[in-house]
């Protein structure tokens, strides 16, 4: 297909407004009568609340209201209603809201919070699923079996197990009986934070007319709207949610998180808007955190390298609420096969309540955690089999005709992992040796293949409202959240291609407002380009058809004789007979003023085609395409310090079609850097009694420019996809998936030590080097 705009570096429409500081983020919003909230967080990570004395706080200057959870009568959650907007009689994690002060200024609210006196009776604290699973463990949610939840989610009564997910393919016993070699391992991907530079926040305003208006730096305005309407007994149409510019998401601003808490507080001061923006400490402890996965993995294989069986057990420390973590666990579990076909699988995941902040989406959504285990194990298995690790992988790659753990048969259009692997291998490994160890450094190279499965809900549509203006320019309104990924550019390019007009003639609406924006489930799962793009194509087709209908009247010819070229509609066998688009946008007006036809504006949506619920074995269809890729790196380890330096990081993904080369490179370089942070530096740490060790950027080791790889190579394979626009697949999350195993495989290559846990800090590496030398 000859494409004019797709595949080109079209400029971002939002770059200049952002670079001048003119765009409005949540904290930049000023409203008449705006009040500010600040929260009391608990002294203990798990405790009964004995009393809360707010009398001194109420006397403070500027204080309008002090709110506790005493009056709270509802729970919320999209999957299981195990979330409270504010602690009622017990606190379950260190960042939970215990009380709030609403005041005229943030400073006043924060000063008054210090005057609240809460008395607690401490309870045992569990920060790891392994501890809360112990037989005598205190139940974190005694009433868990009674929580309202979606079908298929079953807390195990009398335990802290919030849900057990099982997926079976074939007969795993038979698979291990056939195996000639078995390898086992346990891997840990600990807690960390999406940590966007813009902290999360919300504003909620209960109006006198009984409607609610809210603003949030969220990527799911329509879910927030429905959830609030449900809690406050209002028609959904009486809740209006605005999404201003979002300063990065990376997962944790999805799902309903802080909005219900701010709404609960604001409900005590109806008539005035209440704003809360997280401090960095609150952003790290009181929103959603990431990961917390332990993966036990056992792989069976024949001597020739054919994989026969996979058993994984994943323990998820899901935090004090499972609602936002359950699907991360499910994705983590069924993606533990990585990019390989196993004829027999038994994959199990346990969501376990812990006294830590609730885990939610984090870029990669479960994929990197279990594929970290799989890709490390592939290297380990290859060594055991005395096989080339690439040959072992190639023997087992998923691809056309192969079947995933979920029972989905793959087609050529699902992409080509081997092509990606070959590309990466050619750059890092082929025809060259790694540098020999010298006085200062060890050198290593590592590889990982990866698979990104789809993850959504069967009803998860994205919609497009498209309007032709009388000068032929086009306005497009979508419900997709721009978080920095560049979706407005993608919208422009896809629409320009579909409508055959220059991207400069297309303007994408910037704010999402549930009052005006077309419905979208939420902007997650690297699916905007595929689903949103498809919605644009469908809306464009409708608009062109509508113009043809009008033109057929004007030109007095049947519609099927007409051709659209962006400027005009003309008769295909006689292009001289034509009418300009500018004359059709509002219907066609004849010289005498009589007007025929319709205004050219259309709406369309695109959902995941045929996504199904799991069957009794946990199998089903995810409804949209898989994506494959491969990553590799060349590293150096500094002997004196143990520091791992990334000299070259290489990624290749089969994205179907590159829409915007510069933007997609930015997605990959950013994702790789984020995952290098997870691999080498970042961990949100808790003491055994649940206190946060490093909830500030000065202590939480966020990667800086000095941690960036010396060089990143980013390549793409383009095997066209059937669903996405012009063959495109998603890319947002994929770059984080193979990074940790690629680096840790390289560390093994460098010093011969197998690490199974991240972050692999320089202290751990130095210790290993010292131990090795001592031997």
């Amino acid at each position, binding site marked *: 297909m000859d494409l004019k705009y797709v595949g080109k570096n079209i*400029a*971002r429409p*939002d*770059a*200049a407004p*952002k*670079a*001048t*500081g*003119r*765009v*409005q*983020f949540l*904290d*930049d919003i*000023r409203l008449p009568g705006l009040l500010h909230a600040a929260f009391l967080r608990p002294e203990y990570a798990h405790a009964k609340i004995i009393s809360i004395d707010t009398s001194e706080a109420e006397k403070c200057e500027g204080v309008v209201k002090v709110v506790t959870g005493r009056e709270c009568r509802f729970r919320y959650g999209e999957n299981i209603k195990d979330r409270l907007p504010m602690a009622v009689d017990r606190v379950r994690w260190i960042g939970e809201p215990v009380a709030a002060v609403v005041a005229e*200024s943030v*400073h006043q609210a924060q000063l008054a919070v210090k005057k609240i006196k809460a008395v607690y009776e401490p309870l045992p604290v569990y920060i790891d699923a392994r501890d809360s699973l112990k037989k005598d463990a205190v139940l974190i949610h005694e009433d868990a079996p009674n929580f309202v939840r979606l079908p298929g989610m079953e807390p195990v009564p009398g335990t802290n197990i919030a849900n057990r997910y099982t997926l079976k393919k074939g007969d795993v016993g038979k698979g291990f009986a056939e195996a000639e070699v078995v390898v086992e391992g346990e891997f840990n991907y600990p807690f960390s934070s*999406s*940590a*966007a*530079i*813009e*902290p999360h926040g919300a504003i909620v305003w209960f109006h006198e007319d009984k409607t609610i208006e809210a603003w949030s730096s969220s990527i799911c305005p329509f879910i927030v709207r429905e959830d609030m309407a449900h809690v406050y007994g209002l028609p959904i149409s009486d809740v209006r949610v605005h999404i201003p*510019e*979002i*300063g*990065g998401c*990376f997962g944790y601003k999805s799902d309903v998180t802080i909005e219900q808490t701010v709404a609960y507080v604001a409900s005590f001061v109806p008539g005035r808007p209440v704003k809360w*923006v997280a*401090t*960095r400490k609150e952003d790290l402890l009181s929103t959603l955190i990431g990961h917390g996965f332990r993966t036990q993995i056992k792989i069976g294989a024949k001597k020739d390298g054919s994989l026969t069986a996979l058993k994984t057990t994943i323990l998820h420390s899901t935090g004090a609420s499972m609602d936002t973590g359950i699907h991360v666990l499910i994705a983590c579990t069924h993606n533990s096969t990585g990019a390989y076909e196993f004829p027999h699988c038994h994959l199990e995941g346990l969501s376990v309540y812990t006294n830590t902040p609730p885990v939610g989406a984090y870029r990669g959504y479960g994929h990197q955690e279990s594929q970290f285990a799989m890709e490390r194990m592939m290297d380990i298995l290859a060594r055991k089999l005395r096989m080339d690790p690439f040959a072992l992988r190639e023997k087992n790659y998923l691809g056309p005709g192969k079947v995933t753990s979920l029972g989905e048969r793959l087609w050529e259009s699902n992409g080509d992992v081997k092509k990606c692997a070959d590309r990466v291998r050619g750059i890092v490994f082929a025809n060259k040796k790694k540098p020999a160890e010298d006085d200062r450094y060890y050198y290593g190279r590592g590889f990982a293949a990866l698979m990104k499965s789809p993850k959504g809900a069967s009803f998860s549509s994205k919609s497009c409202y498209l309007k032709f203006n009388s000068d032929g320019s086009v306005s497009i309104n979508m419900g997709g959240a721009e*978080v*920095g*990924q*560049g979706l407005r550019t993608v919208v422009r390019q896809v629409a320009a291609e579909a409508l055959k007009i220059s991207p400069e003639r297309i303007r994408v609406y910037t704010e999402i407002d549930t009052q005006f924006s077309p419905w979208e489930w939420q902007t997650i799962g690297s699916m905007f380009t595929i689903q949103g793009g498809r919605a644009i194509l469908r809306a464009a087709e409708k608009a062109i058809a509508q113009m043809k209908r009008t033109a057929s009247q004007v030109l007095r010819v049947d519609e099927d004789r007409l051709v659209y070229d962006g400027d005009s509609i003309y008769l295909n066998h006689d292009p001289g007979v034509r009418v300009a688009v500018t004359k059709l946008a509002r219907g066609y007006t004849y010289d005498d003023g009589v007007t025929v036809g319709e205004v050219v504006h259309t709406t369309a949506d695109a959902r995941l085609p045929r996504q199904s619920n799991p069957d009794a074995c946990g199998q089903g269809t995810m409804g949209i395409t898989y994506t494959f890729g491969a990553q590799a790196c060349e590293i150096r380890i500094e002997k004196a310090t143990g520091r791992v330096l990334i000299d070259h990081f290489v990624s290749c993904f089969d994205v179907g079609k590159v829409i915007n080369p*510069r*933007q997609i*490179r*930015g997605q*990959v*370089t*950013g*994702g*790789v*850097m*984020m995952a290098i942070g997870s691999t080498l530096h970042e961990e949100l740490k808790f003491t055994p009694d649940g206190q946060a060790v490093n909830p*500030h*950027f*000065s202590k939480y080791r*966020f990667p*800086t*420019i*000095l941690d*960036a790889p010396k060089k*990143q190579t980013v390549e793409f394979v383009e095997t066209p996809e059937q669903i996405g626009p012009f063959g495109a697949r998603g890319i947002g999350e994929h770059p984080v998936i193979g990074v940790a195993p690629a680096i840790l495989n390289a560390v093994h290559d460098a010093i011969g030590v197998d690490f199974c846990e991240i972050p692999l800090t320089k202290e751990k590496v130095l210790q290993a080097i010292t131990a090795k030398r001592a031997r």
Partner: protein
Amino acid sequence: MAQTITFTVNGSAKSVEIEGWEKLIDVLRDRLNLTGTKRGCDDASCGACVVVVDGEAARSCVYLAKKLDGKSVVTIEGMSNGTALHPIQEALIEAGAVQCGYCIPGIVMALYALFTRKLDVSEDEILEELSHHLCRCTGYEAILEGARLAQKKMAERRG
């Protein structure tokens, strides 16, 4: 204790009554409604709040407002004139360094202070300056590219 400070912001004189605890970021955002300066961490670790005070990059989240008396402040709002962008802004955009955009005002201001002081700085000096700015989106590659392009553009314009 309230006190009045007098200083200039983006060339215009301001006289503002402040409380002793207030930081420069509070004055800019909450008293002068200059919301282009961003709050990201409150412990001087992310660089989103950087503005230029008397020619030096300053983290406005820890800069006490009372120390501002008689000083001259430039913020992101002073970098473009309504029709044209500053070359640093142009360069960061061209390099693809603007994704979510939240860290960008701080980076623009830091580079402005750096390049105004001395334009022909080495890449190591640029890296050192940028190492005080956190960005979650880009992986820093495009930011470094943008910074070097900005240096080139400023040198060309200076002639």
